[in-house]
């Protein structure tokens, strides 16, 4: 969770930024001020406890616990694992506590460090005060990809750091301990040989036998999912529960310019949305856009809303809530003439206007291919013969009646396993066979829909004779567009089977655009 600070502090820090960044502006490259031991601490002005507590509403107990566990200045500590759901403020809270205590620490996130080598080297780089730059060819201080080497190097570098910490006299006391913070621990499970690395990290403290190193692990998962066949002495757990509703309210009320207005807004949105998800990042993205909408009727945002204003704003916002609740990915459209284009996208013909047009161009054979793939995934292969005989799926109806005659629970089971199976897979031949059938069926409609009469003569029948090469090409491009996914190696070998990923409404849309009677061919269970 990105921490929110009250505006005063932001102002203060930003002034500090401007001063420090003024030093940066003049273009001297990196190595001109190499990192010192102070870069291990947060630096900056002291960060009092009350500010920390006000930064994290609903996290008081966790903050105090963490401070207690880390103990007073340079008192050794057992490894701690901080765990809790995503965006519950684990990372930022740990960092802010370190900032508050002003202790030197090393942070590495297993997100950015995506394999053991990168992880180890980043930790060592920070300990050795090494910064990658063009002068050293962006290389690490030490090359290290084995845990065994890592332990040795870590001992050395920790030793160096301890010396420098001892020698260091000026400034605030930072103690004689370094804390190692490893974030996103749960990602390691997905690494190859991740289990070993995990056990290594959990045992790191007892392996090193250096009380000067405090280990803080941050994980999205509770520690007991990491148990493996050999186990380990698990660190002291510290649990971050999901925010309650009024925690959320306080969080969102922080650094709002007009708190009254925003709380009125929260009265409207917070309850329904927190039923769906209580993750702050998701909520904040939603709320930021909604709040803009909410404020649209207002002329000045400084007003403190009274009841009827609230009511008005609510009635203004109300229609937007339901769609927003059911949407997870909002794409704001920037190009001004977008919708005009959207309309023009459809190829000109009357029967295209009223149906939802598909807003991207496909060649006609690709469309037929798409439908064929959809049918092949949807219908059982045994039906193809009866579907695509000369009568073009006329006895489909009879088959349906038979299906209805089937006894109830058998149907139940069949349905359920169909659901389990999902869209079926099919070989290339079946696809092409179906394609040729429906192309020949849709031919008539196809003709007068796309061509003039004489265009029909020159156009289609000719290119139907040598469809093949281009059809395989179309299959490939459909695969690329994820409309069909394929498994297996080489389609000319027997091994590859295809599966259509097309949703039914898209398929129907395409069928409409060809004026192809798709519904007639669907085998309804």
């Amino acid at each position, binding site marked *: 969770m*990105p*921490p929110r600070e009250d505006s005063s502090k*932001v102002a203060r820090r930003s002034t500090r*930024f*401007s001063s420090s960044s003024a030093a*940066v502006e003049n273009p001297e*490259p*990196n190595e001109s001020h190499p990192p010192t031991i102070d870069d291990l601490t947060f*630096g900056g002005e002291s960060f009092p406890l009350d500010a920390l507590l006000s930064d994290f509403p609903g996290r008081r107990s966790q903050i105090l616990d963490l401070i207690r566990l880390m103990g007073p200045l340079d008192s050794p500590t057992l490894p701690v694992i901080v765990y809790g759901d*995503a965006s519950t403020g684990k*990372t930022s809270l740990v960092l802010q506590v370190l*900032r508050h205590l002003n202790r030197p620490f090393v*942070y590495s*996130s297993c*997100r*950015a460090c*995506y394999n053991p*080598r990168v992880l180890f080297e980043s930790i060592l780089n920070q300990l050795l005060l090494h910064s*990658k730059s063009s002068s050293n060819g*962006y*290389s690490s201080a030490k090359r290290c990809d084995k845990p065994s080497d890592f332990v040795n190097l870590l001992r050395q570098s920790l030793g160096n750091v301890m010396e420098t910490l001892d020698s260091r006299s000026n400034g605030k006391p930072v103690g004689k301990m370094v804390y190692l*913070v490893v974030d996103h621990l749960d990602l390691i499970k997905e690494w190859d040989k991740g289990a070993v690395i995990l056990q290594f990290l959990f045992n790191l403290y007892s392996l090193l036998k250096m009380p000067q190193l405090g280990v803080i692990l941050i994980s999205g998962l509770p520690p007991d999912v990491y148990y493996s066949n050999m186990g380990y002495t698990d660190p002291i757990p510290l649990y971050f529960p999901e925010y309650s509703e009024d925690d959320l309210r306080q969080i969102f009320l922080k650094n709002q310019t007009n708190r009254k207005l925003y709380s009125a807004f929260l009265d409207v949105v917070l309850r329904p949305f927190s039923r769906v998800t209580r993750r702050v990042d998701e909520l904040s*993205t939603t709320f930021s856009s909604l709040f803009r909408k909410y404020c649209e009727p207002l002329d000045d945002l400084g007003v403190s809303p009274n009841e009827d204003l609230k009511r008005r704003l609510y009635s203004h916002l109300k229609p937007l809530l339901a769609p927003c609740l059911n949407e*997870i*990915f*909002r*794409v*704001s*459209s*920037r190009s001004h003439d*977008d919708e005009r*284009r959207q309309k*023009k*996208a*459809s190829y*000109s013909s009357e029967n295209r206007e009223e149906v939802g047009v598909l*807003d*991207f*161009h*496909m060649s006609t*054979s*690709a469309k037929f291919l798409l439908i064929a793939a959809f049918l092949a995934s949807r219908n059982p292969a045994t039906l193809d013969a009866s579907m695509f005989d000369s009568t073009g799926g006329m006895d489909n109806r009879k088959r349906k009646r038979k299906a209805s005659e089937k006894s109830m629970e058998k149907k139940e089971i069949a349905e359920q396993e169909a659901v389990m199976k999902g869209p079926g897979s099919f070989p290339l*031949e079946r696809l092409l066979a179906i394609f040729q059938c429906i192309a020949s069926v849709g031919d008539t409609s196809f003709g007068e829909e*796309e*061509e*003039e009469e004489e*265009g029909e003569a020159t*156009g289609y029948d*000719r290119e139907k004779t040598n469809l*093949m*090469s281009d059809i*395989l090409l179309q*299959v*490939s*491009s459909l695969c690329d567009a994820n409309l069909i996914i*394929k498994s297996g190696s*080489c*389609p*000319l070998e*027997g091994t590859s089977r295809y599966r259509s990923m097309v949703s039914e409404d898209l398929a129907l849309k395409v069928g409409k655009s060809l004026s192809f009677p798709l519904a007639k061919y669907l085998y309804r269970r």
Partner: protein
Amino acid sequence: MAPSGTVADPPPSSATDSFNSGATAENDIRPFFVLHKASSGNLQAKSTGTVKSKRRIESPSPSKFAKKSEPESVEEEDNDYFSTLRLKVFDTVWSKIEKTIENVLRDSNSKVFSGIHDWIRESFESIRSSGALSLSEAVRSYPVLTQASSKQLFTALVLTRNLEMVDDLLTFEELHLRLKSQGCHVAKLSSMDFSAKNGVGGCLRGLLRQFVMPTIDVADVTILASWYRENKNHENPVVIIVDDTERCCGSVLSDLILILSEWAIKVPIFIIMGVSTAHDAPRKILSMNALQRLCASKFTLSSPAERMDAVLEAVFLKPCSGFTVSHKVALFMRSYFLCQDGTLTSFVRTLKIACLQHFSLEPLSIMLEHFCQDDSNQLSDEGTGLLTEATMKHAFDLPSVTRNKITRSTYEMLPQFLLDLQRMPNPWSIVVLCIYEAGKFDKLRLLDIFCETLDPEARYLKYFSPSATVNSQSHISGRNSVIRQLLRKLRDLSPSQLSSLLKSWEKLTAEFSEINDKVMELHPFMRSVEAAGQRQGLPSSPKKHASRSHSKLEKELKAMTDKVAAVIEFMLREYMKPVESVPFNEILCFKNVDKLQSALLGDPRGRIQSDLLESHSILHCMCCSQRGTTTLLPSMHDTSILYTLAQEHADVINLHDWYQSFKTILVPRSSKAKPKSKTASKSKKRKDRCEEPPEPPAEALVQARFCRAVMELQIAGLIRMPSKRRPDFVQRVAFGS
């Protein structure tokens, strides 16, 4: 010259095209890759090598000679002098066309590109305004704690509304250069970098290779950060272009997004995703966490159909190069675009092939050179100067000439003909453009109008007798004539639309007085209509008229639309004479659909199979060619023998039977059945030694040849190796003619 050579030189478009498929070969579509290249015209010569070249050589040459077949023989050097000359002219003409197309495409994209650039600038400023970071903060490994909502990653979804990627590769390349020229740090990742095998390290490495330096020991995002803080890099945004999002491995892309979003404050990164299908494609690919890190906004490129119209307008309707195509060719190109692959690339390729063949087939096409540079007076003498006796003769044998009863006697008025041939397209194209303008309200495609108006025996013209216009609504046969449709739709245009239509017509017909006057006449009526509209006050749309029939405005509008329709019909009646109805049009106009098609759609699978069936017609070996084609001979090529045998089986072939029949072919009955007869009559044996192998090959040899032949068939993709379940059966890959 023979088209084989010319076809073999790749058009630039198809070069990128084949590159694209080469790229996709990573996604396991190599077999398609072969076919893809083969279908793309330039490589079919390779795919079925010997076949093509032979056929080429024999096919065009007789036609050329047929043109020149005269009682007095043509001297050769003159002939090839002209062929080289024509080739030169082709180069000039085609380069001109190509340049026009490029410009058109660039214009069609430029608006979107500038939109993207503005978006990047604005968001970049918004990020920078939230407080600059000190260097130590910017490169340290833990997130910046002071900005709220710091994990949003600005993302542009660029909808290339075409299933095919081919056209858009160039588009994104342009975008890349455009942004680079405006100072952004741009890296272009393709789906190759997002392979599941290399994981997120692979694409990070790709990024760093493009941004920082080619040799990175271990790819790490901190490198990016520290690079970004070095000499003044941090004053420009970092842009990452992923041109084909659908093909990327979703998990890897999500990982990259998550990593970058962690660093979004320190390194302001903008991702530009090319999405070829619907705009919610990312939702299908990305993981939920990655999805909600994206702060997405979408940009829409012009659809291929729109680009197509723009290209048509620029190439054929605006004065570009005199070259045009006939009605049938246009229809073919249209149906190829609509039905087969809807890429502009392939359309341009078709056009190029057409142009090429025109120059290779039509001797008089030299004159196009003079149409290119528009000073016409010097055409008369020099152009005729070019004409030798032979070409003159040929010119007056042209069907269009003979049709119009122009005889050799009117030789001196040839320049005259050529002149108005040159100025002929202008009124016609103006009319077409006017109709297109009118059709825009109805969202008619220029492609349709173009194809219809090219029609030499213009069926729609006969509806424009004043009698027909009355009952034009009730006309059935004109149902799918675009122009009739347009006239019908014309009735319910709002006054505002009408006025805008008039203005555009004015502009179009500016330099063509006859139509222009007509258009000008309409203006007073227009004014009265608008006046009526103002008097009535409310904005007047046709619906409102339908609802309560307001007398005055209603009448005015009706009259107005009638006038407009009348003008259109006037234009059509007077000036709508397509190219093909003009004498000497063969000089400009390419008509030969069949050649174009055979050059364009090489159907390699079908050809491979047919050629396998009659191999002797290709390799003219004397041993089996004089024999009938039906009987299989041991001297034939093993593969073709096997394939011919395979025809008898169903789609599964029992290997044993196959082998047996193959063996019986190679080892003829006679040699095993009655050896004594052979020894007895040496003479007979010697007579047909030339046909039979001297002694039957050994069993092992036969088996070896069998295996090799089967292998070749498999490699050609005609059969499939035995499966686990049925080890002794091969399957025929059933598709193909």
